[in-house]
């Protein structure tokens, strides 16, 4: 410590007057200069040696970080930091919400600059798909009738009893943090609780980890910590789907089937298997399609790569599966696609 404080005064000749010495008090000039050098005042442009940072403070702060990590790690979900996280979320949430409201219109700007050739390629692809769909449609009435019969049976057997609560993604965890999480602009005030399923128009997004009053944190299924019970739609083979922590275009998932002898076909659909009480995942939500199957004969295991339907690089509006009749500060979307719930909540107040 002592050498750190002494170095400046011994190394620097008092050749240059400090910048703040224009006060006209000559008698205090020398003292002010000494003090300035010791506390290393002066801008980036000023010459003169600065004291190095205090080692004891560094050690104290490093130990404080270690304490934080220990507190958070050893106590798990009962971490004393959870209330702190909630408080920080309540303060920061509105800022994130506001910023993302401003940014949202600008984020769409690149789409305006698509070139003519990409657009014509897209038209070709869509025309082709349209033909394919048209041919499938010809066989559809029979399938639809059969499905309607089944639907009546299942609807009578069990009412799903769930609604969707719309929410917007207002913050993304950076890839530097090696975890795939996003923030939603709805929290416990909107009726959200941890372990609710989050979906969007394309398929399964993830589940809610924790909520504050106005925000909630969602663990995406691409996170390495995420495990989803899944089944292959065509064969009903069950397995576990794990994230690989890659966001962006190649957000692939690994499926591990319980029965290794069941080999799915390419482009088979993978849907959620569902848990008791619909937490954390409700059943039957489409997740993605099988793209590759790698099998290792020696280890008698196989790795199935699943391409998710959801584009995790461009999440915006998502829906959270909540029980019907949840008290919420916003409108719910019912199972029949009707908007409702807000009036009921209003009457309840």
């Amino acid at each position: 410590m002592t050498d750190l404080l002494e170095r400046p005064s011994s190394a620097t000749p008092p050749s240059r007057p400090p910048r703040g010495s224009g006060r006209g008090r000559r008698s205090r000039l020398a003292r002010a200069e000494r003090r300035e050098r010791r506390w290393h005042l002066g801008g980036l442009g000023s010459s003169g040696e600065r004291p190095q940072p205090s080692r004891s403070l560094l050690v104290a702060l490093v130990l404080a970080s270690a304490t934080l990590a220990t507190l958070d790690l050893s106590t798990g979900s009962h971490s004393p930091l959870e209330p702190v996280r909630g408080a920080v979320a309540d303060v920061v949430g509105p800022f994130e919400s506001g910023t993302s409201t401003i940014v949202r219109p600008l984020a769409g700007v690149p789409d305006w600059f698509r070139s003519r050739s990409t657009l014509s390629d897209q038209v070709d692809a869509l025309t082709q798909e349209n033909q394919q769909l048209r041919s499938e449609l010809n066989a559809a009435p029979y399938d639809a009738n059969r499905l309607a019969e089944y639907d009546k049976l299942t609807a009578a057997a069990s009412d799903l009893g769930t609604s969707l609560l719309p929410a917007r993604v207002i913050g993304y965890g950076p890839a530097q943090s090696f975890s795939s999480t996003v923030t939603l602009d709805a929290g416990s005030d909107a009726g959200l609780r941890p372990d609710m399923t989050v979906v969007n128009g394309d398929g399964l997004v993830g589940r809610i980890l924790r909520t504050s009053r106005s925000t909630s944190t969602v663990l995406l299924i691409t996170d390495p910590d995420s495990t989803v019970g899944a089944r292959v739609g065509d064969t009903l083979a069950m397995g576990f789907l794990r994230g690989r922590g890659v966001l962006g275009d190649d957000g692939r998932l690994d499926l591990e089937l319980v029965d290794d002898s069941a080999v799915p076909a390419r482009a088979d659909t993978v849907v959620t298997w569902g848990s008791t009480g619909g937490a954390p995942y409700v059943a039957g939500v489409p997740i993605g399609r099988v793209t590759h199957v790698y099998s290792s004969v020696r280890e008698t295991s196989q790795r199935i790569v699943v391409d998710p339907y959801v584009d995790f690089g461009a999440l915006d509006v998502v829906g959270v599966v909540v029980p019907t009749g949840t008290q919420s500060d916003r409108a719910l979307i019912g199972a029949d696609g009707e908007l409702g719930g807000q009036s009921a909540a209003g009457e309840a107040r």
Partner: protein
Amino acid sequence: MTALRAAAAAGAVVLAMVLQVSLFPHLAWQGVVPNLVLLVVVAVALTRDPQLALVTGFLAGALLDLAPPADHVAGRWALALTVVAYVACRVRPETRASALTVVSTVAACSFVGTSLYALTGLVLGDGVGSAGELLQVVALSLVWDVVLTPFVLPPLLALFTRLEPARMG
């Protein structure tokens, strides 16, 4: 004046955090965004007395650890950014800093910060991908940080230099 300087640093940190979480993901490259909070910490360390720089690094890291989308073990970014502040104070030039010095400081700090964060993840078993992915993320974030340096560091340095006690009289 200390309160004013601390308020300026805190404001810059919060603004950087919000932009990093809400604005830059739209421009993300393989999910990697520029680490604006790290840039603010480096700027503080290049102008302010080192004690305040260390504290700013710790508090900014704690904010990154606790603010909403974060789900890792708290204290990891706090440790990484404290060390970043220390490194930036140590490598700070004795005389006037040239643009090259600032850029190389940012590059070194970005490398140290992201690697340290990843290493603590490995030690605590807190979900870090394979070594290849890890190096890719470290390299991409270094490139991002260096690219953003000419736009972010000069205004911050100007702001913090203006608030120096010597200037305030």
